């Protein structure tokens, strides 16, 4: 079991977001940080899905910084709300430990 620490950085007037990893909701605190446990071990190259949903104006963004409990950083792109879906944005990001 690996413990992930997620730090989110909302910008551009983003009003609300929710995150999940492998289908389990990540409880984010008021300082936009949270933790999640996933199957596998840090740096074992196992694949996982970060789900995100957000509300805001077109162009609002959400960046992530995710680290595993051994200190390794996980590469995850930032996401944004596109005009065609405004005011909602969502999707799933595939990442590896």
């Amino acid at each position: 079991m690996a413990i992930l620490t997620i730090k989110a950085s909302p910008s551009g007037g983003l009003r609300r977001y929710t995150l999940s990893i492998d289908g389990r909701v990540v409880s984010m605190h008021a300082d936009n940080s949270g933790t999640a446990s996933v199957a596998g071990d840090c740096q074992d190259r196992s694949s996982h899905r970060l789900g995100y949903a957000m509300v805001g104006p077109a162009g609002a963004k959400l960046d992530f910084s995710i680290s595993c409990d051994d200190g390794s950083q996980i590469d995850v792109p930032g996401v944004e709300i596109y005009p065609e879906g405004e005011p909602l944005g969502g999707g799933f990001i595939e990442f590896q430990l």
Partner: protein
Amino acid sequence: MIRPGSLAAAAALIAGTFLALPAAAEPVPGRAADTPADRFGVPAGAELQFAAGTDDKNATFRLALPTGASQADSFALILATPIAGLKDAKPASLDALANGSRATLRWGHFGLPPSQDRAAPRELEDEAKSACSAAEPHNNQCSDSGYAIHKYKLAEYRRYLAHILPVGATDYGIDATVGINDFDWSDPHTLIPQKVRHTDWSIAAHIDHYIPGAALSASIAYQRAYQAADEQLLCPAGTANPAADCKMGRAAAPTRKESLLLSAGGRYRFTKADGTLSNLAVAPLVTFDAIKSVWGVDVPVYFVPDKDGSLTGGIRFGYRSDRKDKFTVSAFVGAAFSILQ
């Protein structure tokens, strides 16, 4: 902008939260800038904020009250007072609560369920990600289904969002405001200046539901506030020199006004067959003044884009049950269309 004395002004003054009855060539006002976005960066405990703008000539202190660990809830005490001179702060308008010293207790909740992985159309995701990886092999954004589908399967994008966010998002809240206003007027016979202080209050609730490309909203707002009399030319009895002796002033004490407004509406921006935005949007709104038994319907149709692609103008269809000419059609240019309130 809102015309003082109109039902639109009465609707908009209640914490800037509610939409208005129609008035020709007037854009539908949106919710005030104090949005749930303020919760980002606000610590879990209380915080004192200061904001002052020269536009509204008010100093505002906001105390963000603790709501626990939840990001979905916001709770705040907002204190505001005029800072630019009492005369500026007391115009002869219905906007009593917005122009005097006031305190607002605001609670809000913004519900957004997480994306539903089981509902995600994996085949569409895989096709879009494959196309993305082929075209942008070094872009890590291709691992994001939202980015890939938006860029390479745009016609499917709204449908994809509706799949993974079947419930959408819901924002609701309550504002309770108490305000104190001072009024100056003159006795119409003696012209002796008079002063009186009144306490006004309002309570309002709103709910907005968001889905991809659209919003549905409803609100109810009650306000009891005093309204200054209109200004007029006041002259001493039997004056021989009106140019020197007469002045503009109010010749009557303020009167109490009540309003109870219920409204429901929607906002939608159309897309083309290829998924790109079209230059067409609508924002219908029905409002009912329960005290005056007045119905209003406002249907602005936006189709005039500005240089940035935002829709800022169009034609507005209106109906007011209390007017002789109940139906109106007018062109308008104003604030850009926005689905978010």
